């Protein structure tokens, strides 16, 4: 974008573009106002609105439960915090398995392919049930029967499959000529991967992986189905105590407070990366 030099008269093009901009801003503002007004005026006219307002948007229930929800959310953050690095490591390992070229290591390659096929093909909640109830069912002694361990493991194995695919796409995106250059210098396959291919590949897939970790942050709530009292479960407890759904709205707001900035940041990274190409 080139702005006219300071003090210079605007060019014909600049005048035309500013007129266009003003017009489209006006239209956008007008249509937004109409829709917001419609929602504010029409929704309360719905026959069930009073009941919904009382059970979902109840101010006093919100105020009483919100601190407890925030506290429960700390558990979501903790689960996320120990799962995320393990997912990154396992995902990278699986991605590397899928990239080995040595025929001796073919079983590793097959394992990588099978792994990603299986865990990308299953609903997360199903894996959480199977692992979270199944493994402690073997009669393991405390603390090895904890749903925290096995629930986290379920999240880790599922998300590692997605991360592995993202990393593999990053590896594939590095042009063959980089590999040729590294090999022509006498670098081994392993050094070529470690020093030439991976640093570039991982950088390329940061935004895509960020999106996966945002999804993980939300899916931590699924662990509530096998025991841990994290925010979703805590909201459920409040709902039963107070016969009111407002705690769920509070939980939703807490999730959004984390995921919206993170999503925006991932989008920003992605846009910046596109700009660089």
């Amino acid at each position: 974008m080139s702005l006219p030099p300071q003090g210079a008269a605007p060019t014909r093009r600049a005048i035309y573009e500013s007129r266009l901009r003003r017009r489209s801003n006006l239209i956008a503002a007008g249509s937004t106002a109409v829709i917001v007004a419609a929602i504010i005026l029409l929704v309360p006219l719905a026959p069930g609105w009073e009941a919904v307002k009382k059970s979902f948007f109840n101010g006093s229930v919100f105020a009483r439960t919100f601190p407890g929800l925030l506290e429960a959310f700390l558990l979501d953050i903790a689960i996320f915090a120990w799962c995320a690095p393990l997912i990154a490591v396992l995902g990278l390992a699986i991605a590397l398995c899928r990239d080995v070229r040595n025929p001796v290591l073919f079983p590793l390659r097959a394992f990588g392919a099978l792994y990603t096929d299986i865990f990308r093909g299953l609903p997360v909640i199903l894996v959480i049930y199977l692992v979270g109830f199944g493994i402690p069912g073997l009669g393991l002694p405390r603390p090895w029967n904890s749903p925290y361990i096995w629930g986290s493991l379920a999240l880790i194995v599922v998300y590692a499959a997605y991360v592995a695919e993202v990393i593999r796409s990053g590896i594939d995106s590095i042009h063959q000529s980089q590999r040729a250059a590294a090999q022509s210098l006498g670098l081994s396959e392993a050094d070529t991967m470690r020093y030439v291919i991976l640093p570039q590949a991982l950088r390329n897939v940061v935004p895509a992986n960020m999106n996966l970790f945002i999804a993980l942050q939300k899916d931590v709530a699924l662990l509530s189905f096998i025991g841990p009292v994290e925010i979703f479960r805590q909201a459920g407890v409040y709902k039963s105590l107070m016969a009111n759904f407002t705690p769920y709205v509070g939980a939703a707001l807490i999730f959004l407070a984390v995921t919206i900035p993170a999503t925006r940041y991932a989008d920003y990274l992605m846009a910046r990366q596109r700009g660089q190409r």
Partner: protein
Amino acid sequence: MSFLDIRGVTKSFGDNRVIRGIDLSVEKGELVCLIGASGSGKSTLLRCINLLEPVDDGEIVLDGIDIAEPGLDPRPVRQRVGMVFQSYNLFPHMTAVQNVMLAPRRVKSRTPAQLEEPVRALFRRFGLESHMDKYPDALSGGQQQRVAIIRALAMEPEILLLDEITSALDPELVGEVLDVLRQLRSDGMTMMLATHEMGFAREVADKVCFLNEGQILESGTPGEIFTAPKHERTRSFLARVL
């Protein structure tokens, strides 16, 4: 016996016979230019010598060792045979000096302290000392290609393969890269150069080979090839490019 002896080498990609029996020998300190139309097999021949492509048949004897032997570990060979590519292929996430030091450190286990002086000397020699810590995208094409040459030289190769290294450059940048080759030639570096720079080939080559459809149709001194080509095809190629 020559330093590099290529005997009866063939290479196909599927049904496409890119190299159809090439014999060529290169002496130590010689500069051999490969000329010919795109697709005549120049690049593929160089990639075969660097073992980036396995040859189908024939021998490539480097200093008495047949490096085309199937199953041979390519890495020791590549340490002796440097290669520079048309599109530079620098590693974009490393600075110029990191690009140059990577292979000596990983392959020859040199420490940065050991490399500091000789690497700086190479950069200084080719006029890039002030650009050592820049990333490739902050360098011009000619500078990037000179860094790529330094990167190959840092492994102290015995022969340098140069694959159309000026073809991707703006015309005004070609000269600075060719100057590097002139310096290397006066050092006695053995080089094979696939090129479209006929003027340069004529000026500095010891031997010029004209490739046509995967074969060396004609080879000789620059004088023989450029002033008195024997084959009609060589004549028509030269008429088109000169």
